[in-house]
């Protein structure tokens, strides 16, 4: 059974057709990125998967269930770190577990473990305002990975970071993911990031959002994002996908094979 099944999904906001007839199947343990110009319905898709947006037409199932807000099998990571400024790093990292009713000692132990893995072991008592952007996003990664949800949905988590910090965090994400291989749906508009991280990249067109191209990324794992940027294969895949992305920006062409 596929971990996530999206079947003939169509989304309208009033008269505007936002997503048009999109079907995607994602296997368990697969890392899939969805790229596309802004307004292509990437975030809409993610909000449907989290159950924050009600589903109107088409079918979505996550591990055999319809999406609903608070699904314990889904961990959601937003574009901005959304750390609660009145909570210490530790209390932020354990926030998800706290909402899910995990006892204080257990959730703090788990959060400490994750903070150590993201390199924030010495910062558990700091307030978010005392952390740099990169550190804040590390804390948000820790919060997301603290949850033992088999499916992770990430909405441009590194979109607001500077190039260097972004590389570091991409490698960190790969390291964390590689250890457990959970199913990931990763939204981004950075094609390089999508290629470097994913098992498969799905390119979507400008509104109405349609799938322009799906491409498996057969680069060997474990990967290093920095090393990949020097490889020829990486650049070939990148330019292939870039063409599809460019075609998609002009509107919604037929599927490119």
């Amino acid at each position: 059974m596929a971990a996530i099944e999206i079947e003939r999904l169509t989304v309208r906001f009033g008269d505007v057709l936002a997503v048009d007839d999109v079907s995607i199947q994602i296997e368990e343990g697969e890392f899939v990125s969805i790229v596309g110009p802004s307004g292509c319905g990437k975030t809409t898709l993610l909000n449907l998967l989290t159950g924050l947006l009600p589903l109107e037409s088409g079918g979505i199932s996550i591990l055999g269930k319809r999406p609903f807000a608070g699904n314990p099998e889904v961990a959601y990571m937003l574009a901005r770190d959304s750390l609660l400024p009145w909570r210490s790093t530790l209390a932020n990292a354990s926030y998800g577990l706290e909402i899910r009713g995990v006892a204080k000692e257990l959730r703090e132990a788990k959060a400490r473990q994750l903070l150590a893995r993201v390199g924030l072991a010495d910062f558990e008592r700091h307030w978010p305002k005392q952390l740099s952007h990169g550190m804040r996003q590390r804390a948000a990664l820790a919060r997301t990975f603290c949850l033992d949800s088999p499916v992770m949905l990430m909405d441009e988590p590194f979109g607001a970071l500077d190039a260097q910090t972004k590389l570091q965090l991409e490698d960190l994400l790969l390291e964390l993911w590689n250890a457990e291989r959970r199913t990931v749906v990763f939204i981004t508009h950075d094609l390089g990031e999508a290629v470097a991280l994913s098992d498969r990249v799905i390119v979507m067109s400008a509104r109405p959002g349609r799938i322009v191209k799906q491409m498996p990324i057969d680069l060997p794992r474990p990967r290093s994002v920095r090393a990949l940027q020097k490889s020829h294969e990486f650049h070939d895949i990148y330019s292939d996908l870039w063409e599809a992305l460019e075609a998609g920006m002009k509107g919604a062409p037929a599927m490119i094979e």
Partner: protein
Amino acid sequence: MTAGLRVYAAHAAFIATFLGLWEYGARTEFLPQLFFGSPAGIVAYLWDGFAVSKKIWLDLGYTVSGTLISFVLGATLAMALGLAFVILPKLEQAMDPYLMVLNAMPRIALAPLFLLWFGLGIGSKIAIGTSLSFFIVLANTVAGVRGVSPDHITLSRSLGASPSQIFFKVTLPSAVPVIFSGLRLALIFSMLGVIGGEIIAAEHGLGQVLSYQQATFNMNGVMGLLALLACLGMLVTRGMSRLERALLKWQ
């Protein structure tokens, strides 16, 4: 000499010169004492009030307790109503026009009515002070709650937080800084209301003494009380800022 010390020295020199010229003017009758008093006279008045006849203490007590009671009463009611508005948006819709009219009214104009209802004592002063502090805290509570970050709500909802979890773990803590800045203002306005009420009609309180000193042309008393009120206001603001810093370390 450090820069900080130099600034203090400059202030001290300025104030000494100012007071010296004032005193000199008063003694040579260039500045009529009937209108301006004199620094020596002011010190003598305050010294008598605090240390010799000790009459000021009672009035100070009335003003301070009136201020604190109005503040606590107004702030508590306002926060309760503001938070009730979050839970019951319809209540806010229904009450909004009435609150707007009440808030638009210059509250000190209610003083004659409050004096009639609650008498010359501290009750009427508390009513005026409360009517001022209430609206400030209410506006800030509502603004604070509305200012909650949509990202925090989205994250919490995706985690399956219940409405009460969202309220206590997200909405309320995020509103605290805004509520706090309302509280600081409300404390000053409580004092304003109480002193205003005392000036209009009272048996005790610094406002009443001020009005009496003015009516008997004792300018040293008037000036002395003004200085005292300024100190009191500053003390109150300082105290609130300290409390705020201690409670809101994360900011």
